């Protein structure tokens, strides 16, 4: 045990994900030895994230104003909405530069075993957005695992009567992988979703 402030810092750092007692101690001593200005920068960044960052009123992405950068952008296509689980997924899709529509962040996936049902996600908000009538296509981009698939199935069933085009991201073989290591479900999906090569 160290003296008050140092031990306090170690305890607080140790509560972060992936940081064990030894790592917490190492970070604490690094901060103790660091320049005061560096530590202040870190403190300011931590405070700013709690004070300034909130969730976008439209899509649920993280934002610094009422609406996020993507919802404010007038060049975006209003007719397509891509539904994702987490704000991290928005960043991942943005990196591809393939998608120019809007997003909707659900805030997780349906996971009955964790007690998370459709009512715990931003499904109602999605339905409200769709009822405005501008959207013609909904892309379901939840994770390609069981919970993500179940969420996509649930949403697809809900959206069907609205007469929209509902699409799901393709599943298949990862680029740069080996066919022989692909599992049966993934390889099966790749076969289902095969496409003609047009030259």
């Amino acid at each position, binding site marked *: 045990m160290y003296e008050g402030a140092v031990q306090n810092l170690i305890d607080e750092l140790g509560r972060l994900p992936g940081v064990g007692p030894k790592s917490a101690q190492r970070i604490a001593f690094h901060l103790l030895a660091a320049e005061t200005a560096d530590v202040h920068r870190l403190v300011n960044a931590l405070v700013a994230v709690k004070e300034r960052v909130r969730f976008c009123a439209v899509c649920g992405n993280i934002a610094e104003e009422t609406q996020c950068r993507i919802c404010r952008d007038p060049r975006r296509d209003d007719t397509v909405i891509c539904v994702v689980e987490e704000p991290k997924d928005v960043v991942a899709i943005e990196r591809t530069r393939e998608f120019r529509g809007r997003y909707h962040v659900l805030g997780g996936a349906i996971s*009955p075993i964790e007690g998370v049902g459709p009512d715990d996600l931003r499904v109602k908000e999605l339905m409200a957005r769709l009822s405005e009538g501008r959207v013609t296509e909904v892309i379901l981009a939840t994770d390609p695992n*069981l919970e993500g698939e*179940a969420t996509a199935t649930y949403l697809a069933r809900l959206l069907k009567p609205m007469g929209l085009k509902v699409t799901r991201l393709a599943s298949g073989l990862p680029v740069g992988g080996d066919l022989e290591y692909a599992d049966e*479900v*993934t390889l*099966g999906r790749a076969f289902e979703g095969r496409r003609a090569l047009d030259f």
Partner: protein
Amino acid sequence: MSLYRDEGIVLRTQDLGEADRIVTLLTRRTGLVRAVGKGVRRTRSRFGARLEPFTHIDVQLHAGKSLDVVTQVDTLHAYGSVLVTDYPRYTAGVAMLETAEKVVSVEKDPALRQFLLLWGGLRTLAEGAHDPRLVLDAYLLRSLAVAGYAPALEECAHCGVPGPHREFAVHAGGMVCSLCRPAGSVKPSPAAVALMVALLRGDWESADASAERDRTECSGLVAAYLQWHLENGVRSLRLVERA
């Protein structure tokens, strides 16, 4: 036995660190096993969808101090890909997986009958020949029966006098006669009780012919009975949807 091989069903997965996952398996020979699947969450993982819930797998594990490590895995049946396309069947299936984990509860204590029961249950659910809620209720009743908590349905749970009796008391262990009837007993319809008997015995002909009202009542009784006997309730039961 630092390296061992078994056959099992993936019950649940929890993220661990950057790209790993802890998978809980109900295996044929070893019972409940918690193991680490290294790098499963990476898109280029060699395990891929094999360690997703509902998958029946042939697996090689390395015994560790607290958690085992999955070294090789092959799919025997991927029930998940079928169940996930139908929301009511999926939610019923999740409740089955969660119940299996809670009923077996002790790690590495062989539970062959529970494994076979779960396997059969998932197979039936995936085939889609019966109402998913009936399959779930049949599984819950039989799983409790195998664990030693079979409800007394045709005799009094307290004094053993043969029935039929009219009242059901969850905390007494099933149907009770008018003399033993404790406070808080309920009077289910005879048809709902008959459905419970049919599900426990595997009499699908009678079960499939049952009325929707009796199915709902039967599900309520089974859920109450299950939650009473398991130390921690089954959370996913709340989210099971009727077909």
